[in-house]
């Protein structure tokens, strides 16, 4: 083993991959700018009222995505695993809310004016609160048992194992719901005052733009829940414990934190958020069936990654961004709505090219030594 005694070694420099990578991102960005220019600068087909409507719908759907994405991010932060069954937890919440609203609808509270007045119309606020409470409760319970049965035994296993277990749980829950409730698509029965389509009407450009009550409810509630969660994580003892478990489970355990309890509670919290998102979904969109959680689940996972997985404000931002992109993107780029997911994913890729850890992801470089 002789050291090379020859003259100084020659170094060939090549930095191609990085340029290709960024070049790809720049090409896509230029394409996007070109399309934007066409739509906004040249064609100018759409007026302000159209954009207002798209914005409203994007914010509402973004709120729902954010709530679900937070669930992914919380669990990821603590267990470093993708909870693939999270969308199904949301589906369970949607169903629970549906059943509550059906029940309140079927109970009549006769009044002098209306002998057939249903409970949900007589006390709409109580009904909706009940739907949210039970939806969150059932979804949280599902999340709790999901962790206990499908993930806890795998705490020490390599990272891909819980992922497969989660996929199994997802398939199981989906099919269970299908068998339990039949594959039929059902409609949420909203109390009349917040029926779908009702809302504040604004006139923009002589055109009626409706700000739906359910949409406002969804958006405001999701923002409130997020603020609540954020304060909880930052301020309360549980939040601190969660953060410390997320940083280092062993050390946290040494500090006297019961890691299992904290993980369980994380699943309860993320389940409750998903449940709330599910009920909102139902109230706003009206649909509930066994497959209802699948797409939002995937989308929210995308949102969580976009914002930087493990980062709560990132999940909120990612969710909102994704909602807006889905709603505004195709129109703004003049592309068919069939391709909206393509747009979302391409933008995700571009974001990750320039920020490999998501928008708000830890700024640590990959090569942390």
């Amino acid at each position, binding site marked *: *083993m002789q050291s090379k005694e020859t003259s100084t*070694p020659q*170094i060939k420099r090549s930095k191609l991959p990085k340029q290709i990578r960024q070049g790809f991102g720049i090409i896509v960005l230029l394409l996007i700018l070109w399309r934007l220019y066409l739509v906004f600068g040249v064609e100018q087909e759409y007026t302000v009222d159209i954009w207002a409507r798209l914005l409203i719908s994007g914010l509402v759907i973004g709120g729902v995505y954010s709530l679900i994405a937070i669930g992914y991010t919380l669990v990821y932060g603590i267990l470093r695993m993708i909870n693939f069954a999270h969308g199904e937890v949301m589906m369970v919440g949607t169903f629970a809310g549906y059943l509550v609203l059906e029940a309140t609808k079927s109970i009549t509270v006769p009044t002098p004016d209306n002998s057939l007045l249903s409970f949900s119309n007589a006390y709409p606020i109580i009904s909706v609160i009940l739907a949210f409470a039970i939806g969150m409760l059932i979804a949280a319970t599902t999340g709790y048992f999901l962790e206990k049965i499908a993930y806890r035994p795998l705490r020490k296993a390599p990272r891909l194992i819980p992922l497969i277990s989660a996929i199994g749980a997802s398939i199981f829950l989906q099919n269970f719901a299908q068998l339990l409730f039949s594959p039929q698509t059902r409609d949420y029965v909203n109390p009349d005052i917040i029926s779908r389509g009702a809302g504040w009407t604004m006139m923009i450009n002589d055109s009626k733009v409706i700000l739906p009550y359910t949409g406002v409810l969804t958006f405001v509630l999701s923002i409130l829940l997020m603020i609540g969660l954020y304060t909880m994580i930052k301020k309360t003892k549980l939040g601190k414990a969660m953060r410390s478990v997320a940083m280092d489970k062993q050390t946290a355990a040494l500090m006297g934190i019961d890691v299992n309890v904290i993980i369980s509670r994380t699943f309860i919290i993320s389940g409750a958020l998903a449940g709330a998102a599910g009920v909102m979904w139902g109230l706003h969109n009206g649909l509930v069936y066994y497959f209802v959680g699948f797409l939002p689940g995937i989308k929210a996972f995308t949102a969580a990654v976009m914002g930087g997985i493990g980062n709560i404000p990132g999940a909120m931002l990612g969710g909102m961004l994704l909602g807006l992109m889905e709603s505004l993107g195709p129109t703004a780029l003049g592309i068919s709505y069939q391709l909206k997911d393509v747009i979302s994913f391409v933008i995700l890729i571009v974001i990750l090219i320039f920020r490999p850890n998501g928008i708000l992801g830890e700024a640590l470089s990959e*090569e942390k*030594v």
Partner: protein
Amino acid sequence: MNEIAIKVDQVSKIFGGLTAVNQVNLEIPQKTIYSIIGPNGAGKTTLFNCISGFYVPEKGKILYFGQEIQGLSTDLIASVGISRTYQNIRLFSNLTALENIMIGLHPKFRSNWVDAIVHSPRYLREDKETKQEAIRLLNFVGLAGYGDYLAFNLPYGVQRRLEIGRALANQPRILLLDEPTAGMNMQETQSTTEFIKKLRDDLGITIILIEHDMQVVMGISDRISVLDYGTKIAEGNAAEVQSNPKVIEAYLGPGGAALAEKFQKQRRSNVKSH
């Protein structure tokens, strides 16, 4: 004096607001053992990371036999002859000791995946050489018989040795050793020190050493630099550095020369009783 193997020229590395390495100059002659010491957080490992290409310094140049290497990719730097070990051992822990060394031999050979599938003459030749060379290296670092053990099952000292063996596999001209004796007992430290000397003397490898054990440092270093808060505060041979008041201050705070002497004694006796 020998040719300069590594020249660190006004290198600075900044993390956010923190300047981890601040305008450091080093000239490391070939075939010497050059130690970098300093208190925890002084920027020693960061400097290593700059040299081995993990970090790109914000300012300054790093010259390897006169050629700039800052900003080059790590694998390129490694394959031209700068190997390293890590403060926290980074072996491929689910692979065997032999495989670890074989991976270290990677830059030395050229056969690609097509060769592997068709078992071309080149592949067969190189495969044979790889195995022979790996076994030879294993023997060289004193790990004969450990070849088939998974790396994470090996005792700590052996893991350190194995890591050096892996670093040696691509016939480096420069070897960066990050605390090679950390956590070792007296005998192990002793033999490692001897081994490092052997690398310099027999193989002519230039060794840059980060070490906290002053006995080791003072015993084998040809030259020593002291970093504190990212800045070089002293340079010289063992005696010069030991007597430098700035160094003592950096380690023990103001007026700590006397303390230092006392501490040193205490430490020695501690180690012995252990």
